[in-house]
């Protein structure tokens, strides 16, 4: 089992060309697409941590500030993600309540906690088998975009329900924070380099 990095072979991040890296040449560029060549995404672990911690903090206002406000015949009722879901469940829309709950509360939590576990295990704090780490990462990567669902729903509701004081929906600042959580978790998954999972393993094998 040989790693490409140990044989001075790098894969271009943009066009995935295999490049043999000469050690004496600094800042080598890909001959095909002129991107900087790196063996691994530079500072991958630090970047992922940074995005994750910011996302974890943004989860707090995202869940406690109202995400939308429904005005019906003059009275305004602000809704957080959770209260909106509970209201849906009570009004016999249990299926939709579950979808919204999973997409906007469970998925962001799963992404943040899952990536943190992977990072901790790479930094040798806990042990998770490499294959399971990759499986977890693939799940996080695939599910990433689905957490934006609630924002799309709000944008449609806001556009359509617009009868002023009679009946209207307005977005709340929770939506902005929630949007940030979504973007930050996607960026966190993007900046993580899965090859690091096996680097660690490889080092242990040779010891």
């Amino acid at each position, binding site marked *: 089992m040989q790693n490409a990095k140990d044989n001075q072979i790098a*894969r271009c991040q943009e066009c995935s060309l295999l490049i*043999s890296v000469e050690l004496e040449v600094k800042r080598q560029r890909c001959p095909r697409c002129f991107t900087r060549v790196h063996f691994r995404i530079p500072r991958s672990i630090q970047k992922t941590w940074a995005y994750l911690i910011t996302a974890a903090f943004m989860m707090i206002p995202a869940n406690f500030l109202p995400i939308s406000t429904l005005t019906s015949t003059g009275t305004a009722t602000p809704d957080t993600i959770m209260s909106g879901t509970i209201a849906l469940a009570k009004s016999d829309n249990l299926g939709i309540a579950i979808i919204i709950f999973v997409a906007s509360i469970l998925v962001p939590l799963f992404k943040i906690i899952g990536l943190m576990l992977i990072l901790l295990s790479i930094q040798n704090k806990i042990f998770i088998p490499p294959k399971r780490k990759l499986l977890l990462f693939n799940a996080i990567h695939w599910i990433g*975009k689905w957490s934006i669902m609630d*924002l799309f*729903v709000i*944008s449609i509701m806001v556009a359509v329900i617009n009868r002023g004081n009679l009946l209207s929906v307005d977005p709340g600042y929770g*939506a*902005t924070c929630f949007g940030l959580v979504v973007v930050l978790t996607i960026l966190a998954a993007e900046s993580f380099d899965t090859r690091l*999972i096996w680097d660690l393993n490889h080092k242990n094998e040779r010891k």
Partner: protein
Amino acid sequence: MTNINVCNKCDLIVEHVLLEKNKHAHCPRCNSLLYTNTLFSISTILALSITGLILVVIANVFPMFTITMLGVEEAATLIQGAWVLFEKKFYFVGLLVIFCSFVAPFLFLSCLAQVCILLLTKRNTPQLVLLLKLVNFFTEWSMLEVYLVSFLIAVFKLSDIADIEFQLGLLSFVSLMFISSLIMYGLNLELFWQKMEKNAKR
């Protein structure tokens, strides 16, 4: 380095074997997909992306649905949602919604169509590299299928308080989603990069 390949998930060096049609090669260490032979040719991709572009226009010109609420009928289009968010000064959310549901899929298709045309007419302009990188970027941020599910949820929520009739815009949006999924399934950018190199040598 033509006879070896490297897994891009775990960096393992593997021998490159020529595959039969519709076969996939998986990494022996982490089981990720290494490469496949289920590819669309450049002209197929061009045809699909032009179809997609036409559908983008139809999906945005015609309303997705008409809604009758409190006795007033109103039509709703795709970008209206993001537009109202802008009007209410929720710029970040509006930008995010419009980018993921309209800008990214649209630019993905138009960059891809341009790349195909440039490659098929054998013109290697300097923009080609940039366009190919953009295609890579926009695939990450195009969220048509998520938008469709959100749309259905919104319709379900609205059906309690209003009458909803689906319109032509929705049909073309659904077709657009299928076309773009089909492109992402069969798109192998390696083929494009190789074609670019081949054209450059001539």
